[in-house]
């Protein structure tokens, strides 16, 4: 609580100092629009920002959902088939060490400059943490609990539903947290390279005009979308923790 207060104060102080610097003409307002100008830009162009913001938010949410579904499905498939794992896992891993965000232009080539391109790219960027979370979660089931299931003659479905899934969910949620951030990133980069719509486009467009106030206003909205989506996952985590009612087995991971 106290820590939150200190850092909030720090942020406020920083904003005030920034405002003062610009007012005192130590920094040009063209280079770094002061918070007041950002606020004004937010209020001055509500329809543009709202329209583009909704477009970005919709694509981010959809991309996130698809990434979760695809990542979880792939993770489950890789966990259950050893051959598939041996064949495909090195490639999935290799994909993670290349700068895959730079592959956005390929998606433009294949899918054009519309929403499908941005969605596909967001999924491409964001599915991996969910995949890893799912594999880690399914592998993380307590061995004793699995043995218990065999002793009791539990079927495959029962084992998955009653034991494997609850052990996997914390890992899955950790992966989803990362995926939430990545999905937004994917959509924004998609908007950069397709240059059609969305807050990413607003950022780029306003920056080319030197309108830093509008740039920062759009970025503020982007942050809002990012935090909101992250908050949804946190909420899910909280709900699960309440139902779970015990210290959770999984930690965070990168």
């Amino acid at each position: 609580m106290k820590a939150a207060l200190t850092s909030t104060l720090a942020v406020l102080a920083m904003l005030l100092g920034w405002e003062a610097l610009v007012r005192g003409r130590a920094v040009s307002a063209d280079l770094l629009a002061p918070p007041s100008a950002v606020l004004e830009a937010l209020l001055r162009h509500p329809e543009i920002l709202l329209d583009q913001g909704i477009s970005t938010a919709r694509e981010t949410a959809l991309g996130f959902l698809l990434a979760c579904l695809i990542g979880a499905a792939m993770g489950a498939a890789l966990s259950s088939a050893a051959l598939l794992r041996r064949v495909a896992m090195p490639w999935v891993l290799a994909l993670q060490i290349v700068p895959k965000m730079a592959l956005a232009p390929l998606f433009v080539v294949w899918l054009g400059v519309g929403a499908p391109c941005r969605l596909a790219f967001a999924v491409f960027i964001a599915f991996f943490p969910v995949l890893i979370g799912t594999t880690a979660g399914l592998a993380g089931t307590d061995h004793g609990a699995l043995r218990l299931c065999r002793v009791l003659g539990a079927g495959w479905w029962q084992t998955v539903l009653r034991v494997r899934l609850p052990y996997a969910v914390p890992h899955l949620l950790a992966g989803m947290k990362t995926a939430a951030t990545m999905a937004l990133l994917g959509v924004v980069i998609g908007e950069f390279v397709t240059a059609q719509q969305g807050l990413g486009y607003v950022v780029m467009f306003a920056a080319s005009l030197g309108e830093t106030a509008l740039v920062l206003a759009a970025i503020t909205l982007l942050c809002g979308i990012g935090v909101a989506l992250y908050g949804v996952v946190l909420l899910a985590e909280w709900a699960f923790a309440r139902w779970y009612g015990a210290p959770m087995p999984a930690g965070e991971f990168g």
Partner: protein
Amino acid sequence: MPEAPALIAEAIRFDAVGKTFPTRPVPLRAVESVSFAVRRGEFVAILGPSGCGKSTLLMMAAGLETPTEGRLERGGVKLHGPHRQTGVMFQDATLLPWLSVLDNVLFPATIRRIPRAQVLEAAMRLIETVGLKGFEGARPHELSGGMRQRAAICRALVLDPDLILMDEPFSALDAITRDEMGDVLLDLWQHTQKSAIFVTHSIREAVLLADRVLVMSRRPATVAEELVVPFPRPRTPALADSAEFGAVVAHLRGVIAGNMA
């Protein structure tokens, strides 16, 4: 228990059972030609050096491993796979952390799709017998190690199996709690006439609880010695303080030492 299959006086029978694990480079012979039977209502304890193959033996009895040689009969029928009338307890309690004590105890009923109401009474009675009354709603992380193991006993017994297999169920507990758990089992066995195989490293536990003690050899495990415990039932924990008890324990210790040499 309906006494219909009265002809079969044996709960489980090992007939020259052997187990070899296909390890590389050399296969590992864990169990060698083990033959013995547990009569209905009989409590058999198994003692033996670490790593000799006791757990493997028990896993085969539980239907989790298949023997590579010999034959295993459960109630007169060849055993394949886990048996509905067998309860199993392992070294750690393996309670599911998100379930309450009661739900953990009822977990076997959940898996077998037996209506809760049908076993609730039995579960509550067991929970009371082992001294967990008042903790039905608690989560495993709120319990001590001994309490968790009590819950695991209830879970093994809740569907009223006729054979219980226990693999060092108390070895993760401290000495005092461990003795306490032995007393809980003793107490439970005064009321229920179930068959049991109990693997332990504690000679005291074996002699206090069992009707018969089997001493295994080093790996590959065979039955090296067999001792019928000469104390009548009902027994009480006080038995462990008697001189006769001490004599039997000392005798067994000698047997084991000789066996290891």
